[in-house]
């Protein structure tokens, strides 16, 4: 790794696209809505259901309002990027394929200690769970590796393998940086300078943290949450699982902002999460029914 120029942030993404594209994955674009993780993308949630094969890879911008630190913590962001791969059914050589992707981005497994450490994944808001690992590289978690067992409360038949790379962490590792904001985003050319991750996103972090923690109008948000849930239910009545699911995603994100604003008590928290879960489950069920799969 030392004698090669490490990948810039964008080259890391391009390399993964190239690698997974060659493995037969459709390279998708991010879902154009605010969401907390790549798993919320319909390419994961809805496509994990049903019998049809499905292989896709994409970057998903992920928003976690409560993790915002006003751009001051070198390791935490309120918005970051996940690289997600989903392979259905999970291929027998999924671990090897994954390790191949690490080699592709410049991690030598005889120089770095790669480990699969038990970490069972569960998303209470999606009614989903799976078994797998967090993958460690020299003690740092770089990927979540999961065999989905259930999604939206339904058994996955067949099981999908899901890989979620934390792109910033991987890049910090590859580029040997101590702060996310120092990451090299692209490489300079003779007449155009390079930019860093901080150049692009630090101001977003500052403003979005202020917004999420201090400014967001909570009355408006509570109202929006209600409206999203009502809209979701209306879509379900019209047997439109995709727009219904979009409203579930919206409700989930609004709930996350309300959490960051600190206006949801511990007691209420579970009940809000339960409502989002019901919407997500309802959407999954409608998706199954629309496709004619037994629920």
């Amino acid at each position: 790794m030392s004698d090669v120029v490490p990948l810039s942030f964008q080259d890391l993404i391009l390399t993964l696209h190239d690698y997974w594209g060659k493995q037969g994955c459709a390279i998708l674009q991010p879902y154009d809505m605010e969401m907390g993780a790549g798993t919320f993308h319909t390419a994961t949630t809805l496509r994990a259901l049903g019998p049809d094969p499905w292989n896709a890879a994409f970057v998903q911008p992920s928003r976690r309002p409560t993790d915002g630190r006003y751009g001051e913590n070198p390791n935490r962001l309120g918005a970051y990027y996940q690289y997600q791969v989903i392979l259905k059914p999970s291929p027998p050589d999924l671990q090897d394929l994954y390790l191949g992707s690490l080699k592709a981005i410049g991690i030598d497994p005889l120089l770095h200690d790669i480990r699969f450490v038990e970490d069972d994944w569960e998303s209470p808001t999606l009614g989903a769970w799976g078994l797998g690992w967090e993958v460690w590289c020299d003690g740092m978690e770089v990927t979540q590796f999961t065999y989905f067992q259930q999604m939206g409360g339904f058994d996955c038949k067949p099981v999908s393998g899901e890989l979620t790379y934390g792109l910033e962490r991987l890049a910090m590792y590859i580029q040997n940086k101590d702060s996310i904001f120092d990451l090299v985003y692209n490489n300079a050319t003779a007449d155009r300078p390079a930019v860093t991750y901080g150049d692009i996103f630090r101001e977003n972090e500052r403003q979005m943290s202020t917004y999420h923690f201090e400014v967001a109008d909570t009355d408006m948000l509570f109202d929006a949450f209600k409206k999203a849930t009502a809209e979701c239910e209306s879509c379900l009545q019209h047997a439109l699982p995709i727009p219904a699911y979009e409203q579930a995603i919206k409700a989930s994100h609004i709930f996350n902002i309300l959490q960051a604003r600190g206006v949801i008590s511990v007691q209420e928290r579970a009940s809000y999460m339960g409502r989002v879960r019901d919407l997500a489950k309802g959407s999954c069920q409608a998706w199954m029914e629309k496709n004619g799969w037994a629920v």
Partner: protein
Amino acid sequence: MDGKEWVGSMTDFLLELRSEEIPARMQVKAKEDLARLFNDALLKAGLAAASVDTFATPRRLALIATGLPLATEAVSEETKGPKVGAPPQAMEGFLRKSGLSQDQLVERDGVHYAIVEKAGRQTADVLAEAIPAIIRAFPWPKSQRWGAASVSTESLRWVRPLQGIVALLGDAVVHCEIDGIVSGAETMGHRFHHSGPVIITNAGDYIEKLRVAHVLVHFSERCRIIRDGAKAAAEAAGLNLIEDEGLVIENAGLTEWPVPMLGRFDPAFLDVPQEVIQLTARVNQKYFVCHDSAGKLANAFVCTANIDAHDNGAAIVAGNEKVLAARLSDAKFFWEQDLKVALDTQAQKLAQITFHEKLGSVADKVERVAKLARWLVTEGIVTGATADAAERAARLCKADLVTGMVGEFPELQGIMGGYYARAQGESDAVADAIRDHYKPVGQGDDVPTAPVTVAVSLADKLDTLAQFFAAGMPPTGSKDPFALRRAAIGFLSLLLQNELRCSLKNMLVATGAGSSFDTLEEFLIDRLKVQQREAGVRHDLIDAVFSLGGEDDLVRLLARVKALQAYVTTSEGANLLAAYKRAANILKAVDGVDAAAPAPADLVREELALRTALEAAEPKAAAALSVEDFEGAMAALATLRAPIDAFFEGVMVNDPDQDKRAFRLGLLARFRDAVTQVADFSKIEG
């Protein structure tokens, strides 16, 4: 070959179940389960191995059985049938069941017998059936489906995808298949150090072939390498490793080729409480930590890699150092942020946290605990503390639950509160009480003795117990969601170790949770029996004292029980108990016994002696009891033993003379009552 040689033919068997990474915490149990299931399968087939050894690594679970016969022995099974001359229906039924014809039956002593010769089975066949059965029955705590086969929810489940089976009896593959996985002789070596398959010849070369392929299959060998290697790495840096066997086992479950290595972190992080550093290193990163020569936490850690890296681990150490630094800077951030907020301010936020939906918020609980802690001191139950200090500590004891650090590391509740309290200038007694008030956590944990701590800890547990019982939520069967059994053990340990003198009922009433605590009292006495079992105190003797009623000062109760136990386990005590039971039996059969029945004129020697003894012993026992001299009370009772034995020996209680009889029954009643002053002997077993 002749029969003798055939029987003597033994061979070894190797089974390896190779999968994707098995969680570290499951491997030790998985070894035991594999051995058990395998032995059960052998036993069922009438086979036995000379030895069964099991192995586990992250990627394989294996077993070697030695000294297996090549086949099971032929057996002839004899079944008894109808007698000669029995009705034809009986014979028909028997023939149908045994599958034989009548001329195949054997007649002996007028009875028909069916004799079925069962041929021996090839061991390879037995194993070929047993392997899939073992795999399907394997009790993983959590298992999953995977791959194309998982279109059916009935597809094979394993802890993680199962990849291969090695099954060799001698040098021959035991052929079996499960969900498309076919047994063979091929396995894989270390994930990164070895490419291509490893071909195993037989059980004899399995361990060494894998060693060459950078896999140490012996769990204990990997443990030893980690234990010794971590120690040596610390010593080479002039440090002492803080030993941690749990971490040794966990790291052995995460590696096939463990390589312990020392790393460092910025000494500036040592400002953060050492419990935080230790926990971050241990729980999040599975690192050992070290002490320096002065016994203080050093800025060093030992991580365990799974490879022999090209650069001797320089890059691995550098990477791990960076990860730990990021974690510690997070911790330092929380520590510094938390220090900016007074605990009193934090405590106000507890109103937002539900303790239990029926029992209000944590702030409500704190209010109750503060009152109770103050009461324990003002009542003189806990001495050596001021009521103000007890109340102050109680008011702050849960405040750290809303701090950033405890949010991140819930295990540090109490400990962080202690640090924050000291930092904001609380007295040591108050800070210590906040730190230690969760103790003791279960049996065997240190029991606090500092008075303020005792008051807060006791009040906390007492409140939890009283509130949950009053709200009708006692533990049931194996369900104890609020850890009330543990709270009870903690409560009892605090009370007994500190010899806190108080009526249990008064304490329960002081909680304000209600007025009737019968179920809780019973529960506590039950827990007391469990807790004292380890100390060898007999449960029936606890009952014998408790059922007298009126004795709910548990310190005194236990002292009484111990004196009682010391006495009843002597032969003299056993005799007294026997005499008591005899007296009680006689008395049970009669109505209207008068302990004060007048003495007839002609008393026999034994009657006189018993009366004299009773007259002396009764006041002595009562006096001893009144000053809690339970040994003294026992000694007084002991004086009755000889006279009562002599009485039973020389006197007939049921004398035809009414007066004599009434007087003798009266004497027995007096004897019974004297004994019962000390304990209800009818509850004593034996």
